[in-house]
């Protein structure tokens, strides 16, 4: 269309002012240049309107404005964070003051790709998706968990074996919170001052059972992140009869002499 307009104007001008050559009347290309310019101005104007009125204009559909606003927010957020907290990767002053098992755990978590942010007297550890995964405060490493039983505090020198459904249908969360975390923050087996979660590529119940027995015999903290008293976690039909794998794990622990402690969310040996 633009080409047609150019050609039309060229011939129109030429025929009306036939004493001169077409080249001397070559002013009209400025029209063709002005078109994209005005288009750009329109876009710029839309962006400005979008930024100014984002909150009230329902401009979510305007992807350009949205991108600009999101970019501006992230810049502001980063500047705020730079101003108030110390974003570190293994070398902050709090991190340097860590010692012993806590220091080893911290180094391991940083090596897994977590980013440390020091805020007041707390070291916060974020995964690569910027989700808070763990905190170190008062010489304690605590893994954040929003499902049944809440956060999981580590005990120095002991592994914490984490039991539960992969995808907790009652309280949300489940072991997937750790297994599907983009950064591997656990081990399968002994992990002093850290989490021990079952993750094996050739899963069978006998191997699962061996993991339960070994964890129990090693003296791991036996921590449940799904409710082990709920029939729907224990039985396949949610009532009775055939057990789920979590139900079988509970049975194994009870056979080993462990008893459920609802205050600690742990199976303990009396």
């Amino acid at each position, binding site marked *: 269309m633009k080409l047609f307009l150019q050609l039309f104007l060229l011939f129109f001008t030429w025929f009306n002012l036939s004493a001169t050559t077409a080249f001397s009347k070559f002013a009209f290309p400025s029209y063709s240049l002005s078109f994209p310019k005005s288009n750009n101005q329109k876009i710029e104007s839309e962006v400005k309107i979008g930024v100014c009125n984002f909150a009230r204009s329902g401009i979510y559909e305007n992807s350009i404005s949205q991108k600009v606003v999101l970019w501006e927010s992230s810049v502001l957020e980063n500047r705020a964070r730079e101003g108030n907290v110390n974003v570190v990767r293994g070398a902050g002053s709090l991190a340097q003051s860590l010692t012993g098992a806590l220091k080893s755990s911290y180094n391991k978590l940083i090596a897994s790709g977590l980013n440390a942010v020091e805020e007041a007297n707390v070291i916060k550890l974020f995964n690569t998706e910027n989700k808070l995964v763990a905190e170190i405060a008062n010489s304690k490493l605590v893994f954040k968990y929003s499902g049944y039983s809440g956060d999981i505090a580590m005990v120095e020198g002991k592994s914490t074996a984490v039991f539960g459904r*992969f995808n907790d249908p009652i309280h949300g969360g489940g072991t997937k919170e750790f297994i599907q975390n983009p950064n591997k923050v656990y081990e399968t087996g002994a992990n002093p001052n850290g989490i021990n*979660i079952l993750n*094996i*590529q*050739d899963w*069978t*119940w006998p191997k699962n059972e061996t993991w339960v027995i070994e964890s129990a015999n090693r003296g791991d903290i036996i921590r449940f992140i799904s409710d082990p008293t709920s029939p729907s976690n224990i039985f396949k039909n949610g009532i009775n009869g055939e057990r*789920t*794998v979590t139900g079988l794990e509970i049975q194994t622990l009870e056979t080993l002499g462990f008893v459920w402690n609802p205050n600690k969310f742990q199976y303990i040996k009396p």
Partner: protein
Amino acid sequence: MTTEIQNYIKVKFHSDAHNFVQSIIEKVYENEWGVGKEQLAMSLLKLSNGSIDKLLSYFPIIDPRDIIMEAS
């Protein structure tokens, strides 16, 4: 996705459903489950026995271990 899984889909499911079933199984391969991905994919296909409805009934997966246990 292995050839074995692809062949299993071709043998067990109606030809119209092949692409759909493959897309579901690909999702299994995209995530970590605490068990083998191949193992879980094959268990889902075996339990479904050619039925898309049955296959979909396992989603969302509550515990992949229960699925493998049931399939074995």
